[in-house]
């Protein structure tokens, strides 16, 4: 093996080592685009950690400061906004896990009349999203007396067509023998779901969870419409009010607030980059 390698190496070395232009160009292109793509973020960090007068002046040794973050944090009730977002995201995710699991289990393993029609209706939600039906959903929430509650922000998204579809696809790949083994041990349909299907679908839950959390953390239009008080507003809406109302606030504070609201997701993303990317990949594969 080593002799073979040596002879190969000699053969490869025979022509003078050529500079791989193609590869260099590709690397340069990839990096140029990468830096361009990262620029807004780098710039935001620059502005946020320097005093206001350096927002548009780029000097390498400009003094650093955390004052912008402190000012932003105290200028608006961001702590409350964060709490609201965390509550919202938790509520949606918990609801989605429960409801989508039950529905996906029904579609994957039970035969009953109407199942294919109902499944088509579920898939239809991928196209006709609650995001677009804002007018009617607002009317519904007002009728239910739920306007300006965190429940109202989350409720339209709890029964997620995407989640049902994704979990159904996963459940269908579970071998029937496992289910039968659990049956023999005396587990009922719910016991089988809990002991066999859910544990085997863990990667799908993780993938779907990451996608769902990042989606609803970032969601803006519906929360903007349905909330009108500090007690319910998620960070995205809070940030938009903060940066829109006070035109007098300087840019450094706005970028600090911007980074703060995206901070938890961004840190989670940097830490779990691989899982994030794989989750989105997994969620996209049909």
């Amino acid at each position, binding site marked *: 093996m080593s002799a073979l390698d040596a002879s190969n190496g000699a053969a490869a070395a025979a022509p003078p080592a050529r500079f791989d232009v193609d590869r260099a160009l590709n690397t340069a292109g990839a990096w140029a685009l990468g830096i361009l793509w990262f620029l807004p973020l780098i710039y935001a960090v620059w502005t946020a950690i320097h005093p206001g007068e350096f927002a548009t002046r780029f000097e390498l040794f400009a003094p650093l400061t955390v004052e912008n973050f402190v000012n932003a944090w105290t200028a608006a009730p961001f702590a409350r906004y964060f709490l609201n977002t965390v509550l919202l995201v938790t509520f949606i995710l918990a609801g989605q896990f429960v409801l989508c699991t*039950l*529905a996906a289990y029904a579609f994957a393993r039970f*035969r*009953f009349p109407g199942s294919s029609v109902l499944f088509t*209706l579920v898939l239809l939600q991928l196209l006709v999203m609650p995001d677009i039906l804002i007018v009617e959903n607002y009317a519904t929430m007002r009728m239910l007396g739920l306007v300006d509650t965190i429940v109202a922000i989350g409720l339209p998204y709890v029964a997620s067509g995407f989640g049902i579809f994704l979990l159904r696809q996963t459940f269908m790949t579970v071998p029937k023998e496992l289910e039968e083994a659990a049956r023999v041990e005396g587990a009922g349909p719910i016991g089988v779901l809990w002991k066999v299907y859910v544990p085997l679908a863990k990667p799908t839950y993780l993938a779907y969870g990451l996608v769902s959390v990042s989606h609803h953390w*970032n969601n803006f239009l519906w929360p903007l*419409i349905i909330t009108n008080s500090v007690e319910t507003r998620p960070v995205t809406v809070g940030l938009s009010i903060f940066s829109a109302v006070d035109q007098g606030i300087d840019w450094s504070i706005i970028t600090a607030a911007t980074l703060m609201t995206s901070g938890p997701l*961004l840190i989670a993303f940097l830490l779990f980059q691989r899982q994030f990317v794989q989750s989105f990949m997994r969620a996209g594969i049909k």
Partner: protein
Amino acid sequence: MPRRIEWVYGWLLLTPALFLLFAFTHVPAVKTVVDSFFSTARGARPSTFVGLDNYRLLMEDPVFWQVFSNNVWYALITIPVSIALAIVMALWVDGKLTGRGFVRMAYFAPTVLPLIAVANIWMFFYTPGFGLIDQIRSLFGGAQVNWLGDPDLVLGAVIVVAIWKEAGFFMIFYLAALQSIPPSLREAAAIEGASRWTFFRRVTFPLLMPTTLFVSINAVINSVRLVDHIFVMTEGGPDNHSSLLLFYIYETAFKFWDTAYAATLTVVVLAILSVLAIGQFYLVDKKVHYR
């Protein structure tokens, strides 16, 4: 399990999800269509059946046509550019590359950030005179440009943000597809002496077709859905030159409180989306099988 019991189980398991699904998707969708044939209730005047009046109003509404054409351009530019960029990004990140981890992270990062938040950053880029773009332009003697205040430039400025936000997201799907292409194909092509471009055009791209179908349907939906940055950057202005359909629906319903007309606009959006999604499916689906 006896069949009847299986039926009952199936339906019971579905009930909670279907109840919410109907309550917040299907029923509102149908009600939107119904409401578009009625007038908006105002004060003492209740809503009455007006037939196609709202649609007639729509046809004669210059703002609607402005917004409609904005959205068509928004989609026509954002979709192909972000898909092309996504494919290039995926090819780069999939190949041998120094610092692949950083590059991949840079491409994907905009996806996890709230659009409303990054719009703040982009807004500063576009600030006339002080913004980063104008600062760079001034190095080359460029004059100060009011990117978000000029009716001819504002839509382009908004489109750039959408592309920046979306391309990395689509890249992920192409990356997944690329990794499922067997390496033996590349080796075979190399033996045949196929150039990289030929290999891409004849092998990779056709194999990516199902992904392209999935991504393009997503992109069409996003071209309607992604309007958050409009709120921060332009509020549809100047003079509706950067307003998009969903933003116009929001304005009509929650600023002018004309819910019937907003419902009519929603019906138009839903109709367009359905036609496009179905059309795309048949169009691309045929190509997928043809290969």
